[in-house]
């Protein structure tokens, strides 16, 4: 094992003395599941990342990459952890090509900054610029040409996430219903492989079949194959009109009936969500005037030409009334944007009062959504577990925060998770534990259940990271 002082010096030679931290006050802030790295390094560009990884290989050190840290709790605890490579300084937008609807950014660029940079000159932005909080260290892009486009990803933890982390975690949210997934939006990527080589794939063009589609391999690879450094993504023009409809229901059957009716039409909403009262309460910290939330709330995002938004609003209001909606509200654009930002920040909100929570992300073929949610609600109620539930109704994803507090709740929660996994598997779905107390992780199915293609995933990991340098043990089945 390397002599610590020597390691510090050798890393400092690559990134600069100020950007190697070995002091426990710093390194503990980058602990992963209670394991503290020996050092945290802040490279400033791809070349430095490459040299750090090559150095790690030469000294047999294990690396975990870190962007904003918003998804760092995903996965098993690392079997080894020596270095955290933090991309915070890699925060440059290398190419903003609005006419081509592409953007090339370094991995450490914050999601918020990308959207801000794409706003129009008169501050029309996909996110609520006026509400964004950034600390003094972040680079806010103040130079904006006439843009008026946005990056159509709707990630959880939008206020903290970096684009590198979003891609590595394959983060998506409610508006994937209209705008598709990160895998469909990524055009090119540059990353440092496990052996330290800088590898590029794809480019700026919307179509590209030259070589293997390595961008897709990297989406969702969660730091197990390399460190993402730069990516090129598709953009879309800002919608002409944006608003949110909120509908309240007392019974799940009414809420789901309403949603079924929407999907029977050819209307094209940007998002159709269903959430329980707890979730809505965390999201809307203040009340929406005149809107009393029932047991379930169905928010619908509309983002389109004005005429289309008008028609969708009129038709949906009618359908909701016919489905026994107990209340409705319309959030204009100025409230629509912070609303969806708050939806993305649900998990951090829950964390404030429930640090010991378990966050489970269920997935299933979309047609099973009603049965899955009914089952989940019943199982959680039976276990007496307070929870938030938020589902992307048209996308087959359900996020549940089991808000457990005492140790006594833990067995019940683990039992409930086990039941939920079984139920999802029965519908050809799965589940992932995004967050749980470290002591519980051993007992929980962190990545659900692996499928028959695990044999291929093993081959890939073993071939592309034979020395197991990258996030060892964290990925599916301990890869």
């Amino acid at each position, binding site marked *: 094992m390397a002599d610590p002082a020597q390691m510090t010096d050798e890393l400092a030679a690559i990134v600069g003395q100020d950007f190697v931290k070995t002091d426990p006050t710093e390194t503990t802030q980058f602990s992963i599941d209670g394991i503290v790295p020996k050092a945290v390094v802040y490279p400033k560009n791809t070349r430095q990342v490459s040299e750090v990884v090559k150095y790690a290989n030469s000294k047999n050190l294990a690396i975990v990459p870190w962007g904003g840290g918003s998804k760092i709790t995903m996965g098993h605890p690392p079997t080894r952890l020596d270095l955290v490579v933090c991309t915070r300084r890699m925060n440059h937008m290398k190419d903003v*090509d609005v*006419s*081509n*609807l592409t953007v090339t950014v370094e991995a450490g660029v914050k999601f918020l900054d990308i959207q801000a940079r794409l706003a129009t000159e008169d501050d029309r932005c996909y996110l609520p610029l006026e509400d964004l909080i950034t600390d003094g260290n972040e680079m806010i892009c103040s130079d904006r040409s006439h843009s008026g486009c946005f990056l159509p990803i709707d990630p959880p933890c939008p206020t903290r996430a970096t684009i590198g982390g979003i891609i590595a975690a*394959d983060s998506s949210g409610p508006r994937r219903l209209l705008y*598709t*997934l990160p*895998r*469909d939006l990524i055009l090119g990527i540059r990353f440092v*492989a496990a052996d330290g*080589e*800088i590898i590029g794939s*794809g*480019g*700026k*063009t*919307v*179509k*590209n*079949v*030259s*070589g*293997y*589609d*390595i961008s*897709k*391999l990297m*989406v*969702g*690879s969660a730091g197990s194959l390399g460190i993402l450094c730069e990516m090129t993504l598709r953009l879309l*023009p800002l919608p002409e009109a944006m608003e949110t409809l909120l509908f309240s229901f007392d019974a799940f059957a009414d809420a789901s009936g309403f949603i079924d009716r929407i999907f029977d039409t050819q*209307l*094209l909403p940007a998002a159709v969500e269903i959430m329980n009262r707890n979730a809505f309460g965390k999201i809307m910290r203040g009340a929406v005037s005149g809107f009393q939330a029932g047991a379930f709330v169905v928010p619908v995002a509309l983002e389109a*030409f*004005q005429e*289309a938004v*008008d*028609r969708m609003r009129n038709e949906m209001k009618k359908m909701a009334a016919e489905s026994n909606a107990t209340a409705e509200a319309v959030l204009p654009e100025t409230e629509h944007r912070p609303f969806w930002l708050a939806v993305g920040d649900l998990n951090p909100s829950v964390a404030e009062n429930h640090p010991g929570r378990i966050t489970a992300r269920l997935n*299933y*073929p*979309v*047609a099973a959504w009603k049965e899955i949610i009914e089952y989940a609600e019943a199982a959680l109620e039976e276990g007496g577990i307070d929870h938030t539930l938020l589902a992307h109704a048209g*996308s*087959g994803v359900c996020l549940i925060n089991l808000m457990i507090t005492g140790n006594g709740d833990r067995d019940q929660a683990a039992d409930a998770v086990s039941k939920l996994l079984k139920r999802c598997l029965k519908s*050809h*779905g*799965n589940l*992932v534990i995004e967050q749980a107390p470290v002591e519980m992780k051993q007992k929980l199915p962190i*990545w659900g259940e692996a*499928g028959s*293609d695990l*044999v*291929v*995933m093993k*081959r890939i990991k*073993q*071939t*592309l990271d034979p020395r197991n340098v990258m996030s060892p043990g964290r*990925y*599916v089945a301990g890869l």
Partner: protein
Amino acid sequence: MDRQTLVQRLGEIVGAEHVLSSDMDLELYSYDSSLEKARPDVVVMPDTTEEVSKIMALAHAGKIPILGRGSGTNLTGGTIPIKGGIVVHFSRMNRIVEVDFPNRTVTVEPGIITLDLQTEMLKDGFVYAPDPASQKVSTIGGNFGEDSGGPHCLKYGTTSNHIIGAEVVLNDGTVVQTGGKSQDKPGYDLTGLLVGSEGTLALATKMILKLIKSPEAFKTMTAIFETIEDGANTVSEIISEGIIPATLEMMDNIVMKAVEKTIKVGYPLDAACVLIIELDGMPDGMDKKAEMIMEICRRNNVREVKLAKDNAERAILWAGRKGAFGSVGQVRPSYLCCDGTVPRTKLPEVLAKVIAAGKEWNLPIGNVFHAGDGNLHPLIMFDERDPDELHRVHKLSSAILKICADAGGTISGEHGVGLEKLKEIHFVFSEADLEYQRNIKQAFDPESLLNPGKMIPEAEEAVQ
């Protein structure tokens, strides 16, 4: 294993009547839609995944090269068995396995003709969006291998965005399921990696395809321009103005003339180019979008913009576009279709350079392509029986790809690298990049039996 034994062993797996090995058979399967040729040792036509698995295991044990074939319409030599061996022909595995409208998926076998599948789905109001021009003949399996494109990619994405799961047979015969009806399966996106891998990593025996609801409304327009530059600028501006049409295609004068000889679309024979623009989706606001597009056309000196009145007119417009490649056969007997793709805004300058290159090498070039996503298809027209023309064609093609790569684009938008572009691949990849790709190949096929010699050049070849 000698050929006789191989034929016999394959016959034991699929039945002797489904194994082809006569001289004539091998000749018939020695070519595809590229300019390459090579004979396999045997062609086998399985009917089930289990048979494919046994065939792969046999090839693996005997160290026999093996590749898959659908309709052989690929343009880059992907189905040419340059090292001989086994061609697995999927013509019998052409079924719809399961239709699941509530989940918006359909599961098919690789041999199904793409348009046949689409026609079937449309009966219930569902669309499988990727529409390569070859769709009347090409198969879903072939589309999977190449990550095929088509005019609707601008808005809807390519084949890879519409295949969400697959059953694949690995090099040793192991059968695995990748992806699934839920797109959030934890783990590596193996489906995404396999689509477009040109048969070099595995053979897919089932695909789960994503369906979307048929759009409520359509508006199809043609816009005639006096110069290619005006047309290309219009393409750029439409996107910059915030309109993403479902398709945005361009055809130049040479191609228009060829098309008019066979299909009477009504193209003017004296215009420089025509744009075919289609909007789809909710009808609300569509009139406004169409008017915005027409305004942009007018700003760029358009001669005329026409809206298709009804479905019949729309069908004729599309027949013209989809028949374009075929119709240039009247101009010269052979064509080489380049597949370079560039960022959309570079179209005007790149097109000008391509036209200049054609003049330099003294070969006529017709342009018909997916202008909206910058995917060019310069059709170099020639007579392949003339060895000097053939030689110049390859030089010109390479030069065109270099122009595209230098403009920040790539060498293949949708047709694949295959055999055709092995040399040009280093326009867009470094040696480290290629080595990484070889490692991926190594993970799947260390013996290099699956469609060998395609897509990624050998290490020695890359060192020019």
